[in-house]
């Protein structure tokens, strides 16, 4: 139990970082109504870009922006494969993801992982988030506002604020209309190809940004760090919706629910690791089963648990 409590701040920090990725998944899965599998590749692209740039002396904000930029490009690739080349969205995402595997290795100089030298205190001080700051804040070596929960929390709120503004604009509304009803969107003069590509770009930009934060947090990027990211993202979206949909109706709060969903997912996973002696290699299987069950529930509800009420007219 003590081990779990000690691990809690770290789990919450990581959950918040994955939450930004989950918000990206929310944009494609919920708003655009597309399943975009680019995520598993673009997450690592963001992380790799950040680490390589930072190691070569680029400042943190510039490296983060660059990571966001490569995410936009990954989304652009999937978007063009889907709209311009007419490839189904799922397959377009898989193709980009596959291609990104090589791109990610190339970014990392054909190595499976690259690290930030955090033994060097000068390097460590420059970072915005790090696993080590969790301990440092606890022991009083660093002020509270260097805590990853605080910094990533601010990041999350910033992302939510920008998205809230964007989806209220004419352009953002046309993106929502594209996901809600593409026939209607085209009849209203919206170029649905453009809005779809734009949505995929923003989504993958956020995913890559999240990857760069995780790489920074754990001080390395790894070619397999994005594996299963889409499932974590979906889990966060679903958990957030299941727990908060009744109280969070505003769009900004719905995005917050996704972020909280990711935190809850990570805390639960951490609890499973700490409180049982399960081999951590089974985690992906557990995640897959949990997400499969959550995705099935609404279907089962409609199919098996909805009974016609006797003697009550449907229109009554």
């Amino acid at each position, binding site marked *: 139990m003590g081990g779990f409590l000690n691990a809690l701040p770290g789990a919450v920090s990581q959950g918040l970082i994955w939450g930004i990725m989950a918000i990206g998944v929310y944009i494609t899965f919920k708003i655009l109504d597309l399943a975009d599998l680019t995520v598993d590749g673009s997450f690592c692209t963001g992380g790799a870009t950040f680490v390589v740039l930072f190691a070569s002396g680029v400042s943190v904000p510039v490296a983060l922006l660059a990571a966001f930029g490569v995410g936009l490009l990954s989304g652009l690739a999937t978007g063009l494969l889907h709209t311009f080349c007419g490839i189904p969205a799922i397959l377009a995402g898989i193709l980009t993801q596959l291609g990104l595997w090589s791109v990610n290795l190339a970014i990392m100089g054909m190595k499976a992982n690259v690290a930030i030298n955090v033994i060097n205190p000068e390097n460590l001080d420059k970072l915005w988030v790090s696993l080590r700051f969790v301990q440092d804040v606890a022991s009083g070596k660093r002020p509270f506002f260097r805590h990853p929960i605080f910094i990533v929390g601010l990041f999350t709120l910033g992302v939510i604020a920008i998205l809230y503004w964007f989806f209220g604009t004419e352009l953002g509304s046309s993106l929502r209309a594209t996901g809600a009803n593409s026939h209607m969107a085209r009849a209203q003069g919206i170029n*649905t190809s453009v809005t779809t590509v734009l949505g995929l770009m923003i989504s993958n930009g956020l995913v890559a940004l999240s990857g760069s934060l995780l790489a920074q947090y754990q001080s390395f990027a790894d070619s397999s760090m994005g594996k299963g990211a889409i499932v974590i993202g979906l889990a966060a979206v679903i958990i957030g919706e299941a727990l908060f949909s009744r109280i969070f109706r505003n769009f900004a709060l719905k995005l917050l629910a996704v972020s909280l969903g990711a935190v809850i997912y990570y805390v639960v996973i951490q609890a499973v690791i700490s409180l049982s002696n399960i081999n951590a290699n089974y985690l992906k299987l557990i995640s897959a089963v949990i997400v499969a069950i959550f995705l099935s529930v609404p279907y089962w509800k409609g199919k098996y648990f909805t009974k016609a009420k006797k003697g009550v007219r449907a229109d009554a």
Partner: protein
Amino acid sequence: MLELRNVYKTFNPGTVNEKRALNGIDLTLNEGDFVTVIGSNGAGKSTVLNAIAGVWPIDAGSIVIDGQDVTNLPEHKRARFLGRVFQDPMTGTAATMQIQENLALAKRRGAARTLRPGITKKEMEQYREQLKTLDLGLEDRMTAKVGLLSGGQRQALTLLMATLQKPKLLLLDEHTAALDPKTAEKVLNTTDTIIRENHLTAFMVTHNMKDAIAHGNRLIMMNEGKIIFDVAGEEKKRLTMKDLLDKFAELSGSSIQSDKALLA
């Protein structure tokens, strides 16, 4: 206002499902024309409408709207000329968005979508007034999701959306076919009012001969991808059901009794 010249369209060419849907359509609509289009299933009524809207490219011919050749324009670029209402009430609106958001999207038809607000306070007031004219109480539910509305309410809303930006041409694709008779009549009356008050040019496909006779100033009958009968003005006003049935038998060479769809 609208000119179709020798328009051809074949679906699934070269397969067993090959279907020659439009077989040389020539049609000129004058400004202010309200044309009703009838014909049996598969006659090409909705296909003509989709050709005008640009849902897919046509095989041959040309389409000119208000002096501009739109033959090669994609659907979303033609949208600025066209208001559209579909057969399925689900098609014309975004169910997961608010009533006022749907209206705001339609208000911007033909304009570039920028980073300005998607809807303003001033617009909301304007929409409230316009919703009142529908007489469905929607002005008090402006932030409700459109998915909560009935089919008739959605069609009425779609009609309003189609005319927020005055279209050069209003395309109505059997827009009352999915409604119960009473609601259908109400929506048709709204249609008449909107077309009259905005002096719109309209093209209404219908399955219902009575409606085709009762509405509009011109009537077109289609069969096998061709326009076989085109009547306007006083002659159209004097048309009866029997005239139409006789005409159909005469021109298509098939008996109307075997074609219940036309009678529906």
